[in-house]
């Protein structure tokens, strides 16, 4: 491993953590996210909540969403 490369931090997980949903595991194992993904996770959670609600509402009302990808 080159001297400039930081060794990833790893540790053994508990059984409870092993049984966790994979998304929790994923955020733990990716300890060095250095890409452009810097949007706070809370903002993504909010976006998911809003989009799911808007999709449900659109389905009920029959009015298509502007951003909804056409089939």
């Amino acid at each position, binding site marked *: *491993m*080159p001297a400039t*490369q930081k060794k*990833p931090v*790893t*540790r*053994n*997980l508990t059984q409870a*953590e*092993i049984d966790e*949903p*994979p*998304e929790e*595991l*994923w*955020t*733990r*194992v*990716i300890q*060095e*996210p*250095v*890409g*452009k*993904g810097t*949007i706070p*996770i809370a*903002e*993504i*959670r*909010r*976006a*998911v*909540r*809003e*989009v*799911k*609600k*808007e*999709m449900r509402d659109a389905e009920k009302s029959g009015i298509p*969403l502007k*951003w*909804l*990808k056409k*089939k």
Partner: protein
Amino acid sequence: MDASYNKNVFINCPFNEGYDPIFYAIVFAVADCGFTPRCALEMGDSGHNRFDNIKRLIEESKFGVHDISRTELDNNDLPRFNMPLELGVFIGARKFGSSLHKKKKILILDTHKYRYQKFMSDIAGQDIRSHANQASQAITCIRDFLNDFAGQKTIPGGKNVNNRYEQFQQALPGLCHKVKMQVEEKTYNDYCRFVFEWMKGAD
């Protein structure tokens, strides 16, 4: 070894626009089946040695999905051989690695099931499946492969996973819009965050 090893799925595939529909479908399917997708893109443009990163991912992953469908001649009349190279490292790890690595599981994807015989016949005997360049078929291949290793859980059928993927795809432009991002601007890490949060089922 970190306990996440048993859930990590190393995705070895081309990274280009033409392959994106299959790539993103595979990432979604792996996550939807309860496993953790791992690929070289998660390191972004970190500047680390790319091949060192790939070897680390292979070391950390019990499963490997290797798509050799883009092993074809480029503009220079030379084949793209990164995918077969990384497949070879994965097979080598299984052969020569510790007892942990000897249990590695491999799925090889190609456009046609027996195309490999023309350029890599020595891999005969591996689990090779055809996605016929169809994202939906790739999803079913991933589901069927991982279902064998899902422990006591049964993963819903390929059609079901495909339906969820279609719904997620419809939502993706809205998700990007909400966080002030164009769909084409999303990185691999952005995409994974969207996928995992979407799957949590928060209403």
